[in-house]
């Protein structure tokens, strides 16, 4: 099936070349980082994890989120989205690869990375994080590829695959739980030391991940003959809405616990992020942007007319993605390190080189998504699954212009 990725329009190759150029530029920055060390980054003794790890954390959510399409299909027999399952799985593959790359570019001695496997250390959550990420990648490659092959051959999905599919659904929850455990088990970091962190991670993943997936599929629709079934989109948007509401509810639980208890350790990081401390208020505008955008996206999502407005929906999703990224991608990691163990403030901001390396990883992810989605949409076109109809419906919809429309 890989050969499908080698035949494409001029526009397809232009996009691939563009990504390769981005990867090339970013890898120059990475080679520089390899030569001189992580001193090219804005991190320091006090804020020792930065942009790389926060991108990793955010993308684990994207990897886990595919399950919000897979689960209704297999556990609830919701078949309207059966032709979208493959995209959730392929997105998870790209996200897993990006996660691993973000960890790889963050370590000081990448040549020694195999030490994690050569000296397995079960007491370290990082060991488990590697295990679940690799496992999830393998599961999705296996399930996604096998299903698509079967589709292409016009065969039913093989029976032996079922256990792997059910495992992958449970596994999706585990990858984000373990990522949260990476943070929430540290005694000195008050912002992370909270039992609800894993739940918050999952809630945030299950709104932001499907939102990103929907946006990418909207773009896919523009360049291919693929069209998402309307009902499937409707259901997914509702899932996004509930997950975002739960996400913000969990966030408010954090606020209550910290401020009603009045414990300085728990209040300080939140005060630093939302009000600024000791004259440092670098993150305050971003964090309030997060709050405003989060509630704006909820307002758009819970109002049925606005939720079903297809012109507005992409913007709602963009707003939601920005809000969740500010919360989890920016505030979470920095808030965990500030205030420092000495109750002082050290500011952190990524450097240009750090951003270039991150661009490289994102471009690699986009390349993987492009290639995999190209293959999937080509197969769907061959098979006539979920194809766009002149009236804007999908061939899976019950619609007037559909061939067998009722």
């Amino acid at each position, binding site marked *: 099936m890989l050969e499908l990725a080698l035949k494409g329009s001029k526009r397809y190759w232009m996009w691939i070349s563009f990504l390769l150029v981005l990867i090339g530029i970013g890898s120059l920055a990475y080679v520089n980082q390899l030569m*001189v*060390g*992580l*001193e090219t*980054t804005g*991190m*320091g*003794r*006090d*804020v*020792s*994890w930065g942009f790389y790890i926060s991108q990793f954390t955010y993308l684990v959510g994207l990897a886990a989120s595919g399950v919000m399409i897979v689960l209704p299909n297999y556990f609830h027999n919701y078949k309207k989205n059966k032709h979208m399952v493959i995209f959730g799985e392929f997105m998870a593959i790209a996200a897993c690869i990006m996660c691993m790359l973000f*960890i790889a570019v*963050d*370590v*000081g*001695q*990448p040549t*020694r*990375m195999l*030490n*994690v496997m050569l*000296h397995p*250390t079960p*007491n*370290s*959550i*990082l*060991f488990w994080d*590697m295990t679940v990420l690799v496992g999830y990648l393998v599961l999705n490659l296996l399930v996604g590829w096998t299903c698509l092959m079967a589709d292409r051959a016009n065969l039913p999905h093989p029976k032996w695959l079922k256990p792997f599919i059910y495992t992958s659904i449970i596994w999706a929850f585990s990858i984000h739980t373990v990522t949260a455990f*990476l*943070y929430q*088990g*540290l*005694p*000195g*970091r008050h912002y992370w030391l909270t039992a609800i962190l894993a739940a918050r991670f999952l809630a945030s993943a299950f709104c932001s991940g499907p939102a990103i997936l929907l946006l990418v599929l909207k773009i896919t629709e523009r360049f291919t003959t693929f069209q998402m079934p309307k009902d499937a989109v409707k259901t997914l948007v509702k899932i996004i809405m509930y997950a975002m509401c739960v996400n913000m509810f969990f966030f408010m639980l954090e606020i209550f616990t910290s401020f009603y208890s009045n414990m300085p*350790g728990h209040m300080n990081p939140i005060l630093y992020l939302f009000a600024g401390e000791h004259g440092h208020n670098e993150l305050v505008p971003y964090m309030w942007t997060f709050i405003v955008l989060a509630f704006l996206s909820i307002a758009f999502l819970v109002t049925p007319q606005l939720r079903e407005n297809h012109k507005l929906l992409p913007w709602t999703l963009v707003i939601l993605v920005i809000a969740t990224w500010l919360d989890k991608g920016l505030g979470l990691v920095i808030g*965990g*390190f500030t205030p*420092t*163990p*000495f*109750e*002082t403030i*050290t500011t952190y901001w990524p450097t240009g080189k750090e951003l270039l390396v991150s661009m490289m990883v994102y471009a690699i992810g986009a390349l993987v998504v492009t290639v995999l989605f190209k293959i999937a949409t080509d197969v769907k076109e061959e098979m006539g699954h979920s194809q766009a109809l002149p009236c804007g419906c999908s061939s899976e919809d019950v619609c007037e212009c559909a061939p067998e429309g009722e």
Partner: protein
Amino acid sequence: MKNNRRTFIKLAGIAAAGLAVAPKAMASGSAAPVKTNPEAVHAEHWAMVIDTTKLHTEEEIAELAGICHSIHNVPNIEGKKEVKWLWADEYGHTFPEQENPHLSEEVHHRSFPLLCNHCENPPCVRVCPTKATYKRPDGIVAMDYHRCIGCRYCMAGCPYGSRSFNWGEPRLHMDLAKLNPEFPTRMRGVVEKCNFCVERLAVGKMPACVEASHGAIVFGDLSDPDSDVRKVLREKFTIRRKPTAGTEPSVYYII
């Protein structure tokens, strides 16, 4: 050709036999050829008591830090990417949970020496994915700089900010003429920290800061009721940093 196949099978047989025997042959080194220095000092649990009534000015602590950093080839870097094993900070930063607004002026203005606490339950050891940070049987939390992959999880795990990372090449920030050839320099991309001078204990010497402190720092075996450390702990009021973290530091402060 036939000959070749025969030789190959023969060689393969020998190789297989070798593989079967090799692990045993290598494991027979239980009597390691390494001899312990007869002068080495031993303890069941090394601990340190710092008398901050005697040692509390920034200059005094800087002097100890200077000695520590020079014998351990710690690079001298300014700013947020600094590397430090021993340093000074004020009361509120050292004991953030144990401060009050009416603290004695004198204590409030003291400087306190900070270093790795060599905890009994070290979070850095718990989180390290490669066992590069490990706890020795004598309670010292040690680092294997060659095992460290530089993930900096231990830095996130340490509630005391006692660890430093080599963001760049540390040797560029050292006076190469004054290197201590008896202690290795580090490479970029690894974490480092105070090691309670394990290399000095191994040859029967006390840690460098203890030796230079004119009696303000007592070092000894916490599990021996007759040790100097236990004697001081019995007689004086002492506190440890961040008791709520549950790490049980082995560094005690007389206030």
